[in-house]
């Protein structure tokens, strides 16, 4: 495994204001994810998993601490700069798939591709689209809209969309949370293959021990901290 750090956080803190009350969602998270790792983060609701994921996905700015994504310190970046990093380096997979209902599977994948090209970013190489589609067994479903697909198929399209721009890291937020056990297993196997065959770095948050078991490393969070 390479020792290049794809994610590094140092004393990462996040405090929300809920009315007059300060909610400490993250209380000093130190985390390193190296290239090619498949990391699962587990923990009870409200422990700060989603907040951490949003900060790592450059959708949220931390209150303090340092976040480095694939060599770029995003801690104090503007929204525009964080959007740029997200476009270049991050692929998201959500619990609710979050596909465009009006577009076909191919349309959803191509949209992500065009957003990247719109940012005038060159092809970053890596796994080819045809290989991804073959692995995800989506070749025959490209012209279907989300409503015409099962939850498992939709999630596979979402994974393909996340991978199309060859991100430095895929952030998966409860990717099997809306799937039955059969489809959950299929999706998890695909994550595992992506990681093992193509060296894709993946960070997944989950409540499920079974889902976490496919990862190469499991971290547990409680009260805004990663337990050692």
């Amino acid at each position, binding site marked *: 495994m390479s020792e290049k750090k794809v994610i590094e956080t140092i004393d990462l803190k996040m405090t929300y204001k809920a009315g007059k009350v300060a909610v400490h969602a993250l209380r000093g998270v130190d985390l390193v994810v190296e290239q090619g790792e498949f990391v699962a983060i587990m923990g009870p609701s409200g422990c700060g998993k989603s907040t951490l994921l949003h900060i790592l996905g450059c959708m949220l700015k931390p209150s303090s601490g340092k976040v480095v994504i694939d060599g770029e310190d995003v801690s104090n970046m503007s929204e*525009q700069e964080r*959007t740029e990093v997200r476009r270049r380096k991050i692929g998201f997979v*959500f619990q609710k798939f979050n596909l465009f209902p*009006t*577009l076909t599977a191919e349309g959803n994948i191509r*949209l*992500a591709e065009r*957003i990247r090209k*719109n*940012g005038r970013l060159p092809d970053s190489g890596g796994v080819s689209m045809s290989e991804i589609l073959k692995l995800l067994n989506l070749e025959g479903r490209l012209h279907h809209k989300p409503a015409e697909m099962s939850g498992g198929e939709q999630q596979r399209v979402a994974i393909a969309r996340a991978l199309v721009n060859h991100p430095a890291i895929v952030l998966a937020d409860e990717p099997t949370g809306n799937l039955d056990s059969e489809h959950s297993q299929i999706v998890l196997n695909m994550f595992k293959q992506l990681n093992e065959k193509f060296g894709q770095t993946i960070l997944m948050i989950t409540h499920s021990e079974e889902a976490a078991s496919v990862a190469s490393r499991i971290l547990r969070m409680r009260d805004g901290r990663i337990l050692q």
Partner: protein
Amino acid sequence: MEYELILANITQRPMRTFISIVGVALGVVLVVVVVGLSRGMLKEQGRRNSNFGAEIIFRRPGALSFTSTSGLSMPVQYGPKLAQIEGVSMVSPLGQYLKQSSQGFGVELVDGIDFPTYVRVSSIRIVEGGPFETEMDVIVDRVYSRNKNVVVGSKVEIFGRQFRVVGIYEPEVGARIKMQLDTMQRLLGAKERCSYFYVKCVDPALQEEVAKRINAQLPGNQIIFVRDIPVLYERGSKALNTFLQVVIAVALIVSTLVILLSMYTTIIERTREIGILKSLGASRSFIVRTIQQEAILISILGVLLGYLLAVAVREVVMQYTALIVDIELKWMLYAGLIGIISGFLGSLYPALRAAAQDPIKAISYE
């Protein structure tokens, strides 16, 4: 351009898209038809008023415009004085009255003429029937006869009275209906008065010298060269131009509001999708551009529908009323531009609002 996404969004809510298209189309119709109506009537009137054998119009000061009963303000006693001026060949007084169209919508101009002098000054001739026999007779031109299905012997209503059509004349000159000036004076209570005089010169090439002499001998009145009438009518009056500007502003506001409302509800409905775009790394400008392109596409469709509707309205109006709608390419382009600008303006706020959304809140929007 995100054509696939934009087209998918447009077809997602066909009724809303259709209503937005119709909203823009109505703005286009408003501009094209109202401007066409105003300019069509003016141009037609200018053309017919210039299609005359005389060279000069002599009238009271005031802008050249449609007149009503108050138009009979010039004493006919000016006639003999004009006739004595060197270079004047003939003079004919004319009264003008604006009446409600017999079809209830629109207006029609009626000329009161002194038939013997009018025939000599103008080039009209009676082609069917004959000249006035009684004071309740009128003559009409060929177009009026055809459009209104009026023949010799038919009745037309003017001043709330029935007049008999006794003759059909050619070519088209001035108002399409002509009655005797004496009758018009009596019915309007304007004895010995007319609206203006047509003055025919001995030598048309010397009309400017004749005009100078008229001005010198009968100062304080207005002299208009018949050759300038089409331009004067086309230029329109200040009040009309202001009215047209108001129509354009109303059309722009209506179309903009329709697009604003449509796109605003669209982005509320698509909050989650905007969140997805943001999670994929779409920049603010990408989101703004996508929403604006959708609105502009709707506007373009609205403009095209508006053109079709405007042409249809023109056909119906000209078929069933006395009004003339002159659709000019220039004004169609203006109307199209207004439609597209409304798409741009109307979608600007919703697009900026969408682009400014918090990605986390947007993506968890239910």
